[in-house]
């Protein structure tokens, strides 16, 4: 059996890593609730595992999402992940050729070139099996090294990689990445020195080895180089579970869990923790975070998840997030950042009962449609007036549930982490809406819309007014005429990313106006800055966010900004140079439009 003492750092490091992973995985899965465990049992031998395997290959190895974001960034990540994986795989197969026993010790394929010097094979001989393997091994090593070169370039020119800002890593993480970066050049040196001594390397190592042999005592250098390579690997393996590189094994587990239907919940559980450990701290979220753009704090998930993992969350940062979900849309791992942040808010919030005994009990006649305007719509009455006008025009038999003042839907309390009080409001509203015996609930506020759909669970169809008005138009109950205006549509966070409604408002708008898009739209749309998710941000900083969003919306010079959220409308109207309207106002026609434009002009004085 081949053995040398230099394999020990690698071998012991690998054993430590496997033990640590076994403990972590075991604890995570053991601590899951019975329902999740049942999902795992059902899923593990189903075809869904194959789907997960495919996703692991596409995302964890090839980094498809990273490629979509930026080719250089994708190549850099792919070269490390795919290159290293192939190096391990090909190395294992190659070692079978020279091995005489059935089970090799794990260090044998890694340090194969130290143990075996096959002088029969020429450098570029691709006709024999060992020759092909030797070529492939050097090819994958070259792939990784090219990624390493890019990683160095990224330090200085991160904007080439589509990143304006990069993560500020902890000292420990920087140490871990240093050992990772050392692994591959040291492998190259070790193999080259050995090849310089005995020949028998691939196209890369053989030539480099012969080059070194001209002026270096390679026969004395090769053994220390193997030691250094082994030590670098060993240190990397030992630091991995405590560094950001824990994301490598954890993300694989997360992908499988997702395919089996095991998800993180509102309260922090083991799946949430797996998500936290799956964050690679790549820093893609830094540029997407609008709070970070104005105050450079610990809000972006890359830092926030780190603080959760290190058990060092700050209350201020926990609440300093718009919950706009933009980071989720960009995250290559697909971590539920909003859910994780809310789980921390639930922990921090004292779950006292609210004194909501005062809320009015509403009974009344049945109707086809229940209309729930919402708090923010009552603050911008033009919107509910427009909706009501359109309902009348279409002859909808509706019941205006909160005409005499609204009871909050519970979403703001839910976002603040106060589940107990949110539930009180939800139960009250559920009762009220059930009493209308309606089959469809229409709301004007995306904030209400999201919680109606997610938490109410009362068997009534919930629609945002843009969806319902489109349906009326499609049923020919509402006739629309083109206004001749050019407008841009702003996707409200809670309606777009929050609930996946992007197309209905656009379909409506195309019929009454020429629709342009802003610089960031749909999944990548910016938050208006007014979000109820953030309670820590100052008004000045909110205004700064609003200005940036307006600039993005106005790139194509539209005559008006159309949104579908009363809060967005109110936030924009404060600073916009063009009229800001809700989609219902635009549909309801010219009279209301004129009033709104007057409002805008008037508000400047």
């Amino acid at each position, binding site marked *: 059996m081949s053995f040398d003492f230099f394999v020990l750092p690698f071998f012991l490091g690998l054993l430590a890593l496997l033990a640590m992973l076994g403990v972590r995985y075991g604890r995570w899965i053991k601590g899951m609730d019975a329902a999740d465990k049942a999902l795992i049992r059902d899923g593990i031998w189903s075809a869904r595992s194959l789907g997960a395997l495919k996703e692991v290959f596409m995302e964890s190895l090839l980094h498809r999402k990273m490629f979509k974001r930026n080719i250089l960034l994708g190549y850099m990540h792919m070269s490390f992940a795919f290159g290293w994986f192939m190096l391990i795989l090909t190395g294992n197969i190659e070692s079978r050729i020279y091995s005489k026993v059935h089970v090799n010790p794990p260090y044998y394929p890694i340090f194969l070139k130290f143990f075996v010097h096959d002088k029969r094979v020429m450098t570029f001989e691709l006709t024999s099996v060992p020759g092909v393997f030797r070529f492939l091994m050097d090819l994958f090593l070259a792939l990784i090294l090219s990624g390493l070169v890019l990683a160095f370039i990224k330090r200085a020119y991160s904007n080439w990689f589509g990143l304006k800002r990069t993560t500020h890593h902890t000292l420990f993480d920087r140490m871990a990445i240093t050992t990772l970066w050392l692994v591959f050049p040291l492998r190259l040196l070790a193999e080259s020195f050995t090849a310089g001594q005995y020949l028998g390397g691939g196209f890369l190592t053989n030539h480099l080895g012969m080059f070194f042999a001209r002026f270096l005592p390679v026969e004395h250098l090769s053994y220390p180089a193997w030691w250094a390579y082994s030590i670098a690997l060993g240190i990397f393996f030992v630091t991995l579970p405590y560094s950001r590189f824990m994301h490598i094994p954890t993300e694989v587990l997360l992908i499988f869990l997702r395919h089996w239907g095991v998800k993180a919940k509102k309260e922090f559980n083991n799946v949430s923790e797996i998500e936290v450990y799956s964050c690679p701290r790549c820093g893609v979220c830094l540029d997407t975070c609008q709070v970070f753009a104005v105050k450079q704090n610990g809000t972006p998930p890359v830092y926030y998840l780190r603080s959760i993992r290190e058990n060092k969350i700050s209350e201020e940062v926990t609440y300093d997030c718009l919950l706009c979900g933009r980071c989720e849309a960009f995250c290559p791992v697909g971590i539920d950042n909003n859910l994780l942040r809310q789980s921390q808010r639930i922990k921090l919030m004292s779950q006292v009962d*609210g004194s909501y005994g005062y809320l009015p009990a509403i009974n009344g006649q049945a109707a086809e449609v229940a209309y729930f305007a919402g708090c923010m719509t009552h603050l911008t009455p033009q919107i509910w007036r427009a909706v009501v006008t359109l309902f009348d025009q279409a002859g909808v038999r509706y019941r205006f549930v909160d005409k005499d*003042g609204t009871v909050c839907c519970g979403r703001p309390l839910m976002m603040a982490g106060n589940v107990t009080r949110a539930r009180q409001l939800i139960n009250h509203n559920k009762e009220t809406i059930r009493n209308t015996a309606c089959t469809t609930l229409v709301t004007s506020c995306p904030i209400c819309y999201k919680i109606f759909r997610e938490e109410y669970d009362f068997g009534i169809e919930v629609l945002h007014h843009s969806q319902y008005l489109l349906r009326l138009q499609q049923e020919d109950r509402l006739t629309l005429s083109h206004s001749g205006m050019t407008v841009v549509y702003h996707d409200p966070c809670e309606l777009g990313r929050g609930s996946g409604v992007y197309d209905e408002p656009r379909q409506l708008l195309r019929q009454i106006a020429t629709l342009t898009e802003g610089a960031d739209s749909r999944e990548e749309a910016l938050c208006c800055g007014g979000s109820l998710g953030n309670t820590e941000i100052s008004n000045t900083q909110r205004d700064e966010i609003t200005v940036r969003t307006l600039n993005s919306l106005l790139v194509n010079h539209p005559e008006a900004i159309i949104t579908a959220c009363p809060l967005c409308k109110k936030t924009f109207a404060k600073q916009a140079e063009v009229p800001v309207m809700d989609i219902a106002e635009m549909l309801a026609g010219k009279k209301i439009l004129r009033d709104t434009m007057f409002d805008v002009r008037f508000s400047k004085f």
Partner: protein
Amino acid sequence: MINFGYTINTDRQIDYDNNDRRIAAFLSEHEPTFRICISCGTCTATCSAGNFTYFNLREMIVMLKRGETRQLKEDVTKCMLCGKCQMACPRGVNTRNLILSIHRAIERFEQP
């Protein structure tokens, strides 16, 4: 007590020596916009909760500044956190964080 047909009003002077101003100090630190409120009452006029019951943020802030916190604990749980007051406030008081901070302060200073 014997009913004489008249009563003595409770003392209405603000006794800063005995009043509890810890919550006000906590708020000034954690939500500094607490201090810029001009008690105009716009918040109260637009309030969703105030539409149905006696809930008055303007009064609550005034009372807090005086350190009169007897009613506070019950009153503050009437708020639904909808955020209309914040949109309406002409001074830019971060009312939603103010309410959350009052909860935090109550929790912190409550006698066990």
